[in-house]
Every structure is written in structure tokens, then in C-alpha cells.
């Protein structure tokens, strides 16, 4: 049975910065400082008009393939996860398949998964390797959540950035690569992260464009992405340590065996609380949100990519990836880095809009 290993990873964020000063002008200094002191997010990278999540994904993928000299016809599978695709139909995977110049034998499809996207997409790709359908796959995790937020929704605007990652998977020996997964859902909370008028259930009309201000002063309409922050936060603080414990038991490993525990980069306070509950020591923690924001589905892989760039991932390292969010869902992956390690991609991690059809 074929087995997948993570052999290269790269991430891209927009060059445009949304600074604390801009937000303080919009929401007031005290209000913004209250949130940022806990979130640990100083700046967010957000797309400019004309740039989409798929542009970021294309840049990440194109740079990775060029840097590694991967022949595009050699790719068997393209998996794209996004909740901010170019179109409702077709999936963004098809747009990117064409733009990346992939071959007709390369299967391409989307997974509509939010912040927990990375482990889910790796698990699906691993299944395709095991089924003999792939020997080389590209997983793209991309979101541009800033484009679906109401500009006066203080809770979300202050947290979210946009970004994309490209992850290359290739065949490996059984004791390295993607070693295990633990996935789950608490669907009683699906309403806590929701964009109500975004599909067939609630068609858009005049009423869905009506602005509503909640008790905390956040403004939104039914056509914008919404979060019940207190519920999601509470869920994460309690549920994630519990399911990480389950996962470690299932994998037969302990915290002592792990070199790095990378959590979904939602906000610093939440991550610290979960690390504390789990007892993860500082040298096994990693944060990548201060200068980019919460990158939604790209957050966990971007943190892994940044850890590689910072030299935090040694050859043979055992890494636990923990993502959670929309659904409410969680996904945990155990990854053993190969003996040659993960070499950083030397290309830029920024994208500036020049021409939507000629970015790289």
C-alpha cells in the first residue's frame, strides 16, 4: 500500500497590510487594543480588490513547483480547500488545474472545509495514495476571509488575514510521512461560524443586505461571514485538549515523543490556553499570527511552512498538527518528517497584485 510523505511546503500572503492604526481609526483605540492584547495579532495581510484566494494558492503552488523542479505532468492529484472560492460552480481546483498547467490525468477537486482544512486534506490525499490513485499530489489550502467580512465587524476584522499554502506529497516508506489522523465533528455548533445568505437555503434579496448590530457593536448582514466568538472560543478551549489527548492515545505517542505541536493560529490567548491545558513546553510551541492574522484554512499549514523557514523542523521530526473551526470540526495529523528534512522554499512569501492573469 502506498504511503504519503510531506516533502515540500510553501505559503503566500498578500503584500497589503491592515495595521492596528487603521483599525483604531475605524473602531476606536481602546476597543482594538482590548482585542489585540489577547489575540496577539498586530497586523493582518489582506487581499486587495482583484486578488482572490486562488491567486494566493496559485502563487504558492507555482513557486513551490518551480523551486523544487517538479514536472507538472507528474502530479496525479490536486486537492484544494477553500471557503472563498472564485465561483460557486465550478470548484476552484479546476481554475487552478488550468492555471498551473496540470495534465488531464491529474484529478482535481475541492474540499469545502474551514479552519480545520489541513488535516482533512492530508487525510483525503493519503487515502488516494493508499488506493493507488496517487504517487505525487499537491494540496492547496487557501482562504481570503477578509473579502466576506463586514468592514465594521470588529470581532472578525481584527483577527483575520488572508493566505494560501501549497504542500507537496510524495510516496514514502511506512515509518515516515503522514502517520495518523484523528478527525471529528460537533455539529451542534455549526451555526457559530456561518455565512447565512451564501447558498440555496437563504437566497439573497433586499432583506439579506440589511445591516444588524449585535450587543457588542459588531455590524454585519446575512451576506457576511459571522462568528459567535465566545462560543467558538469556549468550544476550542475545552474540546481541543480533549481530542488531542484522544489522538495521542490512538497514535500511541506521548507529548515527549513530539518535536513540535502546531495549533490552528486563531489567536494567541486561545493557543496559549490550549498549550497550557495540554502541558506543551515552550520549545515545542509555535506561533505564526502576529504579523499575518488568522489565515483560516491556511493557518496551520502556513505555521508549519514558517516553522520550516525558521529552522524549527529538523530531519526526522515528529510533528502534531491540530486544526479546528467551522462545523464545528477538528482534525489532527501526526507527521514524521523524512531523513532529509524539509528544505525551505527560497521564493517570496508575499504576493502583490500586478495583473490577475500573470501572477507568480
Amino acid at each position: 500500500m502506498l504511503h504519503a510523505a510531506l516533502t515540500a511546503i510553501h505559503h503566500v500572503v498578500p503584500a497589503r497590510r491592515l495595521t492596528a492604526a487603521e483599525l483604531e481609526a475605524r473602531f476606536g483605540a481602546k476597543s482594538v487594543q482590548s482585542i489585540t492584547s489577547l489575540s496577539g495579532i498586530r497586523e493582518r495581510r489582506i487581499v486587495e480588490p482583484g486578488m482572490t484566494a486562488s491567486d494566493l494558492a496559485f502563487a504558492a503552488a507555482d513557486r513551490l513547483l518551480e523551486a523544487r523542479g517538479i514536472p507538472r505532468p507528474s502530479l496525479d492529484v490536486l486537492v484544494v480547500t477553500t471557503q472563498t472560492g472564485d465561483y460557486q460552480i465550478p470548484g476552484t481546483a479546476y481554475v487552478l488545474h488550468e492555471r498551473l498547467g496540470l495534465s488531464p490525468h491529474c484529478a482535481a477537486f475541492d474540499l469545502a472545509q474551514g479552519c480545520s482544512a489541513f488535516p482533512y486534506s492530508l487525510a483525503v490525499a493519503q487515502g488516494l495514495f493508499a488506493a493507488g490513485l496517487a504517487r505525487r499530489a499537491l494540496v492547496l489550502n487557501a482562504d481570503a476571509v477578509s473579502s466576506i467580512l463586514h468592514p465594521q465587524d470588529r470581532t472578525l476584522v481584527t483577527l483575520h488575514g488572508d493566505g494560501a499554502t501549497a504542500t507537496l506529497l510524495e510516496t514514502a516508506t511506512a515509518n515516515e510521512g503522514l502517520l495518523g489522523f484523528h478527525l471529528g465533528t460537533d455539529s451542534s455548533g455549526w451555526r457559530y461560524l456561518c455565512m447565512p445568505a451564501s447558498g440555496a437555503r437563504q437566497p439573497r434579496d433586499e432583506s439579506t443586505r440589511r445591516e444588524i448590530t449585535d450587543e457588542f457593536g459588531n455590524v454585519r448582514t446575512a451576506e457576511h461571514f459571522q462568528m459567535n466568538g465566545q462560543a467558538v472560543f469556549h468550544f476550542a478551549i475545552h474540546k481541543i485538549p480533549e481530542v488531542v489527548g484522544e489522538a495521542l492515545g490512538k497514535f500511541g505517542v506521548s507529548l515527549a515523543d513530539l518535536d513540535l505541536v502546531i495549533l490552528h493560529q486563531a489567536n494567541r490567548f486561545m493557543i496559549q490556553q490550549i498549550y497550557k491545558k495540554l502541558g506543551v513546553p515552550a520549545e515545542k510551541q509555535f506561533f505564526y499570527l502576529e504579523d499575518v492574522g488568522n489565515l483560516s484554512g491556511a493557518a496551520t499549514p502556513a505555521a508549519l511552512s514558517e516553522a520550516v523557514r525558521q529552522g524549527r523542523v529538523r530531519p526526522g521530526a515528529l510533528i502534531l498538527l491540530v486544526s479546528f473551526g467551522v462545523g464545528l470540526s477538528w482534525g489532527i495529523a501526526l507527521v514524521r518528517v523524512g531523513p532529509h528534512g524539509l528544505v525551505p522554499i527560497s521564493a517570496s512569501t508575499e504576493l502583490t497584485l500586478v495583473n490577475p492573469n500573470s501572477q507568480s
Partner: protein
Amino acid sequence: MTRAQKLDRLQEIFRDVLDQPALHITESFSPADCPEWDSVATVQIVLAAEAEFAMRVPTATVAHLHCVRELLDLVP
């Protein structure tokens, strides 16, 4: 512990989280009474109350927590 004693202990939590040492709360105290009580503060208050009273507040309750009374009712 009487309900009044529970409210006193909750008041300490609210004072600490909202950074208002002289704050006086009643059972009907809500975010409308205090601009500092935002969604972030709600989470901090609930986590502190869970630790103080060794209890677990259901996430569904946290999602729609509108006043002190709703939290006080859960204190064992």
C-alpha cells in the same frame, strides 16, 4: 453557599476581567451596562467562573450569555 455569596464571587471575577475594581453587579447586569463587556470578556468571565466554581458551562449557554443571572443560575 447562598445565591448572594455566589454573586459576590462572580462580582470579583467581573471586576478583574473588566478591570473595574469598584464595579457593582446585579443579576440583570449585561453588556449593555458596560462597554468593556465584549465577546472576549465573556469568554474570560466564563473561563474564570468555571475555574472558581469547578463547573463546566455548556457552550450553547456561552453562545447566548446576556446577563449575570444566566451564569449565576449555573453555579452549583
